[in-house]
C-alpha cells in the first residue's frame, strides 16, 4: 500500500456523479490513488487549486460550462498549468484516429479501468 503522500492525486470533473463516484471507488480500491470528484464544472478550477491534483480527468459536455473552458481556466492558472489534463468524452469514437482534442489527450467513454490506469501511468508515471 502506498502512503497517502506517495499516492497519485486524481481529480475527476464530470456532471455524471454516478460515474465519478464509481471511478473514485474503483481507483481508490487499487490503493494507489486519491481521487477527488467534482460534478459542477464551474467549481472545477477552485476545487483543483484546493486539491492540487497530479492529473485531471475532465468531461467535455457538461451543463453550465464546457470542459474546454474549464481546461482553459486551469491552464491559465500558473499554479495548475503544468498538470496534465485528459478529456473524457462520450461523443467521440475511440476508433477515430485523433487522440487529441484541442491539443489535449482524450479518452472515450465508456472506458475500462485498465485504460484509465494505463493513461495515468503514461502521463505521470507509476
Amino acid at each position, binding site marked *: 500500500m502506498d502512503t497517502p503522500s506517495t499516492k497519485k492525486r486524481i481529480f475527476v470533473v464530470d456532471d455524471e456523479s454516478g*460515474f465519478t463516484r464509481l471511478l473514485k471507488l474503483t481507483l481508490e480500491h487499487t490503493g494507489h490513488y486519491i481521487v477527488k470528484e467534482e460534478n459542477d464544472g464551474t467549481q472545477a478550477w477552485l476545487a483543483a487549486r484546493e486539491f492540487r491534483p497530479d492529473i485531471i480527468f475532465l468531461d467535455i459536455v457538461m451543463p453550465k460550462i464546457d470542459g474546454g473552458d474549464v481546461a482553459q481556466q486551469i491552464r491559465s492558472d500558473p499554479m495548475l498549468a503544468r498538470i496534465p489534463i485528459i478529456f473524457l468524452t462520450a461523443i467521440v469514437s475511440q476508433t477515430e484516429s485523433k487522440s487529441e482534442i484541442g491539443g489535449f489527450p482524450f479518452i472515450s467513454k465508456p472506458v475500462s479501468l485498465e485504460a484509465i490506469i494505463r493513461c495515468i501511468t503514461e502521463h505521470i508515471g507509476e
Partner: protein
Amino acid sequence: MSSPRPAKHRVLVVEDNPGDVFLLREMVNEEPNSRFLVTAEAGRLEQAMEVLKSEQVDVVLLDLQLPDSHGADTFTILHGAAPDVPIIVLSESDDEELALETVQLGAHEYLVKGRVDGHLLHRALRYALERARSEMQLARERDLLHTLLENIPDRIYFKDRQSRFIRINRALTALFGLERADEAYGKTDADFYGADHAGEALQDERRLMETGEPLLGKVEFETMADGRKTWSLTTKLPLRDRKGRIIGTCGISREITEIKEMEEQLATERNLLRAVIDNLPDLVFLKDAEGHYLLDNAAHLRWLGAHDASEVRGRTLFDFFSDEIATRLHADDMEVAASRLPKLNQEEYVIDPQGNLRWRLTSKIPWLDNDGLCTVGLVCISRDITEQKLAEASLKQANAELAASREELLRAVEEVKFAHSELRDVQLQLIEAEKMKSIGRLSAGVAHEVKNPLAILKMGIDFLSGQKLEGEHTSMILKEMNDALARADGVIRGLLDFSAPKQLEVKRENLNKIIVDGLKLVRGEMKGSFEIERDLQPNLPPLDLDAGKISQVFVNLFTNAIHAMGEGGTLSVRTFTKQLTGVGANVGDSRSESFRVGRNIVVAEIDDTGNGIPEDKLAKIFEPFYTTKPTGKGTGLGLSVVKTIVDLHGGTIDIRNLHDAGVRVTLMFQA
C-alpha cells in the same frame, strides 16, 4: 379638099305656113358663113314634139299659132318637152304682148314676122344658143351647190345683215328640228340656240361684218334651245354682193362633239397615265434611240435633282452622270436598242447627280415602231434599292454577328450546364452535409446520453470484476454484461463514425501495410477454419491516405467477409496497379477527375467464399442502418461509413457477388 368645117348648129323650124318656112330656111341656110342649118321642119306641134324626141336639135324657131296649138300654150308644151333646148318665138306683128309673155315663161327671144332679116335672125340664134349654154352652166353650178348644201353633214347657213337666216342647208334644218328650210328664214340664232351662244354668235357676226375678217375654225360650245349641248367647229365669212359690199354672213359649222369627247377622254386618260407614272415610286423614263430623255416621271426628275421636266427633256446621261458611269449606262442602252431584247431587273450602281452611291434595279425595254422593225427608243423602269442593299448588308453583318453570338451563347450554355452540374454536385454535397450534420447532432446527443450510463456500468463491472465475489455464475454474468456493454458502445461508436466531421488527415501511406495490420486486427473474429490468401503487389506506389480511416475501412470489410463465411472459408486480399482502359463499375458515378481513361490507379480486392448478398439487397448495402446480419451481429452502419471514407479519399468501392460463390469488394484509389 377644103379644111373640115365645124359642124353647124341644127335648127328645127315649127311653122305651118309653107311660105314662112321657105323664107326662114333661106335666111338660116343662105347667110354667108352661116353656122346654122335647118335640119328639121314641123307644121304641127305634135310633129315638132316627135322631132325633138327623135333628133338632136340645138335651137327651135317656133310659131305660136299652129293648127293643133295656139298662143303661149304652144311654147309651154314644147319647152316642157325639151327644157334645155333654147326656143325663139315668132310672133305676128299685132301680137307682141303674147311674145313677151313667152319670154317670161322661158323663151330666149322673140322675133316679129315680117321684120326679120337674115342678120337679125342669125344674131337671135347665136344669142339664144349662148344664153342656153350659160344657163345650163349656171344650172349645173346651182345643182352642184344644191347637192352640196343638201347632202353635206356640215351645217351651212347664209344670213342677212341683221343675222337673219336667208338660206340654211338640210343638216342645219335637221339640227333645228324643222321640216323645211324656209321655216327658218327670217329667224335668228336666238330662235334656235340658248341665249349665251346666240349672243356670242351675234357679236362675232357683227364684228365680222364691220371688219370683213373671216372667223376661221372657232370651236364653239353650243347649247340648243332644247338643252342639248354640242361642240362645233365653225368658220364664218362675210357675204358680199357682186360689188363687194357686205350684205350678210355665211358660215359652215361641223359638229365635233364626238371628237371633243374623245379628246377629253384622251386627255383624261393621258392625265390618268401621267398621274400613275408620277405617283409611282419607281423611276420611269423614255429615251429616244440616241439616248435623249423624252419623258420622265416625277420620281425620276426628283432622282436626277431636276425641278421641271424641261431640265431633263432632250438631255442625255452625260448631262447628269460622270463620263465613266454615263459611258457604261449608255453602252447598255445601246445594246438593248440594237438587240431589241429587253434587259429586266438588272442591278446597277451609279453615283447620282448629288454624288451619292446608289443601287438601282433597272429594266430596259426596247420601244419599237409600229412595224416592230425599228427601235424608236427605250422604255426604262428603275427602282432605287440602295436602302435594301444597305439593309441587306447590315442584315448579313447582323447574321454573322448573330452566328457569332450564337456560338458564344452555346459556349455560355455549355459553361452554364457545366456550372449547373457542378452546382448540383455541390448542392447534393450540401444536402448530404446538412443531413450528416443533423445525424451528427443526433448522434452526439445519443452518444452522450447512452455512453455516460455505459461508462458507469463499465466502471461498475470493472470494480466488481476486481472483487472476490460469491457464486459460481458471478464471473460469467459479469462477462455477459461486459459484452452487452461493448455491443451497445459499438453501435454508438458506429453512429459517431458515420456522422463524424469529414476531414481527413492524409499522408503518403503504404496500402499494403494498412491491409496487413488490418488482417491482424480481425484475426480474433475468425472462429473456425479460415484461410487467408494474400497477393499484395510489392512495389505499390504510396497513396495519400488517412491511415486510421482506411484501416477502419479494411477492418470493417474483413469483418464483414469473415461474418459472411460463418464457420470457415477463404479470405483473399489482392492489391495491384492498373491503367484504366474503360469505365468500370461505379467509376462512372465518381465525380473524381482521377478516374479518366489512361490514369494509373491502385486496386484492392477482397474476396470471400460466403453465401453472397441477395441481388435485391445489393443496391441498399451502403445505406445507413441497413444490415444483412442477424440482430446483434451488426450495427448497419459499417458499409455506409466505409463508403463515406472511400469517397472522401476520392476512391471508389464496388461490391458484387462472385460468379460461383461469395462476394468481391473492389476498392480503387488514384495512384
